[in-house]
Structure formats: structure tokens, C-alpha cells
């Protein structure tokens, strides 16, 4: 701790630079992958770029505010934030404000823009788990007092999200919660056993929804059904394959034109692979590694347990989402509706990711005192 006081006068500069590179690169790729589609749909090739830019500006504002907000305040207001998020999640389902898109009801109509409360839910859940791990630090080995409360709260968020249905986000909150609990010191036996207990639920979720079943089948063998379920993955493979080692050059993707669905959101990594090749795609993975490294370092160097758990959670949120998204595009994981943080088009994702960075930067600032 004394070390960090002398060496680091401000927040984590390397993290700032990494994120700046990621978002600027994201703008370029959003434009490259959406220009033709935007021209066709909105008669303005800059349509999505402009929107993404506005979201980036808002995201920077959020980042700045979070950077300036003492992270201990999050601990204080965890419960109100959780409650608010939960209400928003229910609003998507039950009020008339919910918007449908791509066969799921995930968005909340906020008048001039649509907001995805499940993005905020991820953040709120991390707050809760971090706070819970600190509060119950001495009962962590106890199943009922240390472990079960986290599991119940996770369930409260999990159910409305999976009913939207947004399997991707549901999986992410599970992964983040369990990893945080692992880092926090919950008994590994609990984690493994509950992991095994989850299997029947996941299986039933898959078998109950026809489209999920088809996605899983398409994941196992996309060439079985190249026209429908396997279509996205195969088009993504084509994009990566065409890119080769060095790529076709920015703007020269052919797959994004008509073949690759959601080229500017879920499958933007495929466009990166096609335009920048193996080298570019690997470079992006390395950038995310730098991010993970800095995030975990901030967690390690944090002066108190809440900071450590919060930083871990924020890092995991972005890292899991990024790696799962990339895993889907290369066919390592079945398809989900997940965006690539900082890169993909999407306002809610951008704002919440920037919020996470702001919190991380605040934790990394040695001048921040506990309240």
C-alpha cells in the first residue's frame, strides 16, 4: 500500500489509454461495419456512427462522474440502486414501456432512446456481491449466512433477465457472481455443488425454447443447417477465413455487406477479423488482456476489501462479456445476443462499461479515502 502511494500519484494511466484505444477503435469499426447498412436503412451512412459517438460522449461523462465519485458511496447506496434496477427490469416485462427487438423484450422506451436495464442489472449485482462479501467476511464459510444471500439475490436478477429472454446476460451475471465469490473466499465446495445443481435448470431452459435448441445444435454443427440456425456462425467463419493473416483492410469486408447479420453489434469481431486479419484480431484480444491485467491489479492494490471485490467485479463484467462475445463469433460458444464492450454499437452497453471504468479508476486513485 505504501508502494502504491508513492508510485501512483493519480489513477491508472495505462487503463485509461487501453480504454481510449478500445473506444476509438470501436468507433472506426462501427462505422466500417454499419455504413452500408445505415445507408440502405436510414439513407445516411453515418447514422450509426453519429449515434455511437453521442453515446460515447455520454459514456465519457458517466466515466468522469464515476471517477470523481468516492467508490465507498456505491457501498452506501447499494440497496437503493439494486431496488431501482429491479423495478426497471420488471418494467420491461410488465409495463407498456418495454420494446421488442430480435425476438426478445429487452429494451425500455425512454422517449428519445431505448435503454437496456439488464446492462444496469449487471452493475447493481456486482455492487451487491462486493458489499455482501465484505459484510459477511467472517461468515463466508457458512452456507446459509455467507453463501445463500448472494445466491438468492442472483436469482432475483437472473429470473427476469432469462424471461426477457436474454440468456447471454443471464450467463454473465452467473459467471461474474460465482467468480467474485471465489475471489471473496466462499468455500469452493459450495460453488462446485451449486454449479452442478444448475445443470438441470440450464438444460430445461435450452430445451424449452425452440430457438435456443436450434442455436445449440447449430453450435455443435453449423453446417447442418447453413441457411437458418447455422447461418450466422458460418458467415462469421467466412469473415474470419477471408481475413487471413493480415486482413483485407479497413472498410473492405465483404461479409458485412449483406451476409453477416448484426455486423455492427454482436458480430463486429468477425468484421474486425475480416478487415484486420489474424494479426488485428489477436491485437484486440491482447488489448483486453491489458485491461484485465490492470483491472485485477487495481483489485489487488485496493486498500480495502470492498474496493478489491468491486474492482474484481467491474473487471470481470467487461472481461467475461468480451471473451464470451469473441468466443461466440469464432464458434467456441453457442450464439448469444451479447455485444463486444467498447467496440460494438449499443448505448446501454457503452454507458455501463464506461461506468465500470470510472469506478475502477476511482478505486485505483490512492488519494481516495474511506468515508
Amino acid at each position: 500500500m505504501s508502494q502504491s502511494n508513492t508510485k501512483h500519484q493519480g489513477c491508472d494511466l495505462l487503463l485509461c489509454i487501453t480504454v481510449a484505444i478500445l473506444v476509438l477503435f470501436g468507433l472506426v469499426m462501427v462505422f466500417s461495419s454499419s455504413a452500408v447498412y445505415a445507408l440502405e436503412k436510414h439513407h445516411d451512412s453515418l447514422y450509426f456512427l453519429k449515434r455511437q459517438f453521442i453515446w460515447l460522449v455520454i459514456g465519457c461523462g458517466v466515466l468522469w462522474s464515476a471517477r470523481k465519485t468516492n467508490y465507498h458511496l456505491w457501498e452506501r447506496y447499494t440497496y437503493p440502486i439494486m431496488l431501482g434496477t429491479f423495478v426497471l427490469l420488471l418494467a420491461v416485462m410488465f409495463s407498456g414501456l418495454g420494446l421488442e427487438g430480435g425476438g426478445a423484450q429487452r429494451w425500455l422506451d425512454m422517449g428519445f432512446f431505448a435503454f437496456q436495464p439488464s446492462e444496469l442489472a449487471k452493475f447493481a449485482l456486482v455492487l451487491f456481491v462486493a458489499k455482501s462479501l465484505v459484510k459477511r467476511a467472517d461468515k463466508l464459510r457458512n452456507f446459509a449466512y455467507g453463501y445463500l444471500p448472494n445466491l438468492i439475490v442472483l436469482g432475483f436478477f437472473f429470473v427476469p433477465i432469462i424471461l426477457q429472454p436474454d440468456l447471454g446476460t443471464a450467463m454473465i451475471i452467473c459467471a461474474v457472481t460465482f467468480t467474485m465469490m471465489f475471489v471473496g473466499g466462499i468455500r469452493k465446495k459450495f460453488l462446485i455443488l451449486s454449479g452442478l445443481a444448475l445443470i438441470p435448470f440450464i438444460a430445461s431452459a435450452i430445451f424449452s425454447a425452440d430457438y435456443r435448441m436450434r442455436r445449440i445444435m447449430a453450435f455443435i454443427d453449423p453446417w447442418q443447417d447453413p441457411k437458418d440456425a447455422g447461418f450466422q456462425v458460418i458467415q462469421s467463419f467466412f469473415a474470419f477465413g477471408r481475413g487471413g493473416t493480415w486482413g483485407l483492410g479497413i472498410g473492405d469486408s465483404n461479409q458485412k455487406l449483406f451476409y453477416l447479420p448484426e455486423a455492427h453489434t454482436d458480430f463486429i469481431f468477425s468484421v474486425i477479423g475480416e478487415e484486420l486479419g489474424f494479426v488485428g484480431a489477436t491485437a484486440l484480444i491482447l488489448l483486453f488482456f491489458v485491461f484485465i491485467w490492470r483491472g485485477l491489479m487495481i483489485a489487488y492494490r485496493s486498500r480495502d476489501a470492498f474496493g478489491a471485490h468491486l474492482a474484481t467485479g467491474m473487471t470481470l463484467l467487461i472481461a467475461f462479456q468480451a471473451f464470451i462475445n469473441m468466443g461466440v463469433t469464432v464458434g467456441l460458444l453457442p450464439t448469444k445476443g451479447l455485444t463486444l464492450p467498447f467496440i460494438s454499437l449499443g448505448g446501454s452497453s457503452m454507458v455501463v462499461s464506461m461506468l465500470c471504468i470510472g469506478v475502477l479508476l476511482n478505486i485505483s486513485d490512492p488519494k481516495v479515502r474511506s468515508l
Partner: protein
Amino acid sequence: MSRKSPPLKKDARAILKIRLVGVACLFILFGMALGTRLFYLQVINHDELVALSKKQYADKEEIVYGRGVIFDRNQNTLAMNIEVESVHINPSRVKDKSYTARTLASHLNMDRGKVFGDLSSKQRPYWVKRKCNLEEVSKLHHLDLPGVRFISEQKRVYPKRELAASVTGIVGMDDKGFAGSEYFHQSILKGTTVHRVIEKDARGRNIRSVSELVKTKSKSRDVVLTIDEVIQFIAEHHLKKQVEKYEADSGMVLVMEPHTGEMLAMANVPQFNPNKYQAYPKEKRRNRIITHSYEPGSIFKPITAAAALDSGKVKSTDALFFCENGKFKIKSKTYREAANHKFDWLSLQNIIAKSSNIGSIKIAQELGEKQFYKYIRKFGFGKKTGIDLPGESAGLLTRQSGWSGLSLPSISFGHEIGVTPIQLATAWSAIANGGNLVLPQVTKLILNNGQVEKSFSPKIIRRVISEKTSRQMIEVLKNAVKNGTGTPAAVPGFETAGKTGTAQIFDWNSGSYSQNKYLSSFIGFVPADAPKIVVRVMIENPRKHHWGGVVAGPVFREISKEVLRYLNEPAKGERVFFLNHA
């Protein structure tokens, strides 16, 4: 409210470190899996995936839009584009083949059996019918047949129908010109080609209409012809009337500006409608003014005369020649006059006026083979004129080294030589314009987005005869109309220069001249002393009557009369009022 969170103790931090390293290891494993997978897809499997992806691009169809417009010299539209729709089908997506085939066939006026056969046998997506009019398709839209798509395209239309069709030309389904200016200027007129994915879009994204594409990135280049649609109409009208009146096989008229070489009209009868060109046999669509050569007959005689005068071998138009009283034997062949005329002594001027064959032979004999051949070449015969239209024929002219003793006498009155109407008109233009052979042209301008990109200025190829010879010949040809065979062609109120021709059609099958098939010709220019137009009229195989003066002459007269009026050329004794059009 919340407890102050305690600072981390040293041992707690050590445990945290181990666990964070564990998390990092998880992501490193994940990252390695990603990297391996990427390497496999992008480096190892690169070629295979590229090949596979190319295969699916083959499902794209090529669509051309924004082909340039063809205008006449006053920028009246001769060829343009309209929006149509094409019906495309993916057999693998069709649910009920028999119902789909039945519905398509009835709406698109196609044969049901054929549509069903195609649908059953084909695997890959294909065009059912291209470029249908919008009414045909609009009902199909509402039926929402699975597997059936509608693609917006552009279709070439010729709003003036038959008018100037053989000059404007036609385009195929793929919008590539394959006749006339459409073909000649393909590289200029060609529109923008887009590769449009027709099937790939699994979600049925709407297809952009072509007109939108045209608006977004139109860079059309248009062609302005020298043809004047009014003159073209006048020419086609009178030609058609005469061809019908004499039940002739065909006819053609060419109106040319003698100084600039600009073609004002090129009329072929029978006509064809380029909007449904498939209904006409290929021969009917040819512009025979440039593609066919004929034995010119008597209308070649002035060329012989002009050559003799220009060479100085014959001093004046009054020089006398003995015409052998209608029978002239050279080697084994006896030459006679038409209609068994018998002439004794005729001046050069009268040889042309009376159209004496033997007189022409005598004139050519004065010239000698070498000089005569040289002049024939100088007038441009035996070689393409270089007009900017496709398919031009060079005609037939035996090299002088290959001439038999009978070549010179035969060619002197227009036999044993094949000449295209355009060659003859160009040669006559040289007589009319003071002696220069000009390049005949049908393209005036190329426009790029409405601005002139290129203009085709008149080109003089060479001087053929002197101005003096030109003036002498004009007098000779004026006389031929006034006092000779060409009287029916005289244009009222104007000095007219011209020459009739009546040739027996050479039958290539029997190798001899047909006894009852004639080519009735007239060529001339008005006003004779300051020519505005050279008009060539040709009527093939007229029934009832075959004399050039009678059949072709009046066509020349009527066309010239109307064209001169249209060009505001004052007739003799006419009071001229200039109207200020502003």
C-alpha cells in the same frame, strides 16, 4: 449507515493475490483458446473458407442501372430507361411448387408447363421473368409467394418506337448494346453495375429500388446523335409510302450534310420496333445503309466523269464521245445501252443526262485503268468510310492488278463493284462540297451529367477532286435532273443536282443478273449550288415499275422539299420572313 470497510490485512492480501492470479489464469486459458481458434480459421483454413465464401457470392445477380440516354441532335430522347421489376425465385424455399408455378404463369403470361418444369428441375435461384412491367408484378406482390422475390431493375425503352431504330440500336437483357449506337458507344453509355444479393438475406430485408440507386450515385454519360428526328421522320415517312406503293422488298434513305459529314437521317424500310426486337429477324434489324453493298449502276457514272475531268484527260463537260450507236463490243462482251437506246455522239454532260453506258466506258477509257482505279480509291470505295456505327462493310472492289479487260468498262457504269449506300453518299458529298472527302458521322456529342464531354468535329479525310471539277460536276448533275432521266426528282423552287440509277439485282445464287429484280436508285443534293443535304434513295425490287427516276426520284423530291422547308431554306421566288423565335 454501512460499516467502515476495513483495510486489507497482509495475509488477506496474499490470499486475494492467489485467487486473482487464478482468475487471470482462467482468462489466459480462454484467450489461448480464442487465439488458437482464430489461427485455425484465419491462417490454416483460410483458403478453404475463401473458396466456400466465394461460392455463396455466386448467388448474387448482376444488375445494371443508369445507362446513358441517346438523344437526337436537338436533344430529343431516342433511347431511355424506365423502372421495371424482375421476378426471381429460389426453388428450395418454395413450399407448393405446383401452386407457385400456376400462379406465376398466369400472372406473367408464361407457359405453365415450362414454369413448373424449371421450378422442379432447378436447384439454384434463377430469374423467372426479367423486366416485367409493373402491372404484371403488382398483383404478385400481394400474394407473398414463398421463395419468390422481386428485384427492381431498369429497362431500355425507345419512346419513338421504329424511328431511327437501325441507328440507335438495341440492348440485350443484360443492358449491353448489340446494335447501332447502343453497341458502338457501349463503353460510354454503360450504366453502373451492382452485384445484388438476392437470396442471402434470411430476414427478407427490403430491396432498394433502382431509382434510388440512380439518385445516390448516378454518373451517366449520354450520347447526342447527329440525326434530326424530324428529318428522320420525313425520310422514313416518304420512303415507307413509296415502298408500299410499289410493293418493293425494302428501301433505304440517307440524308447527309455534305460539308460536315453529319448524318441527318438514316431510314430503313421495313422498320422494326426496338422495344420488341426479338419479334424481328436479324436481317430486318440491320442498318443496310452501311452493312450491305450493292452494284451502284448508273449513279456511279458521275464518279467516272468527275475522275476524267479532274485528271485533265477530259478537258470540258462539252467534250464529245462516240457512243457506237448502242452496241460496243470489247473482247467477247457486247455492251448496250439501257432500254436499247442508240446514241451516236454525246457530250460528257449528256452522257450523264442520258445515262449512257457506252459513253461512260469511253470516258473511263480516256482515263486508263491506273488513273481510274486511283480515283475510285480516292473517292473512298473499297474501304470502310469509318462511320461511327458497327458492322460497316467495305464493299467490293477488285485490285487494279486483278482487273480483267472487262473491269474498266463494267465499273465505269457501276457494275463489277460493290458499294455501300454510305460510301456512295460520302463520295457524292465530295462532288457537292467542293471536292473534299469527309468522314461520315452519326455522333455529335458525348454528355457527362449534361455537360459536353466530347464533341465530334467534322473531319476532312482528303481532297478528291478540285473545286473546279466539283463546280463542273454540279452543272452536269443539274442538267441531268433538268433535261435527263432525273426530272421526277426536281425539287420545286430549288436547283437540284442528281442522278438516277436502275440496276438489275445480281443474283448470287445463279451468278447472273436477275431479269425482273431491280434496284431503283436516286442520289442528289439540293440546293445544287450551295448544297445543304445529300439524299440517297434506294428501293429494292419494286413491282409495277422499276425506273430509278420514277420510283426513287419522287421520294428524293418529297423528302428534299420538306427537309429544306424545315431547315428554313428559302426557295426561289419565295419571300422569306424570319421569325424571331425568342
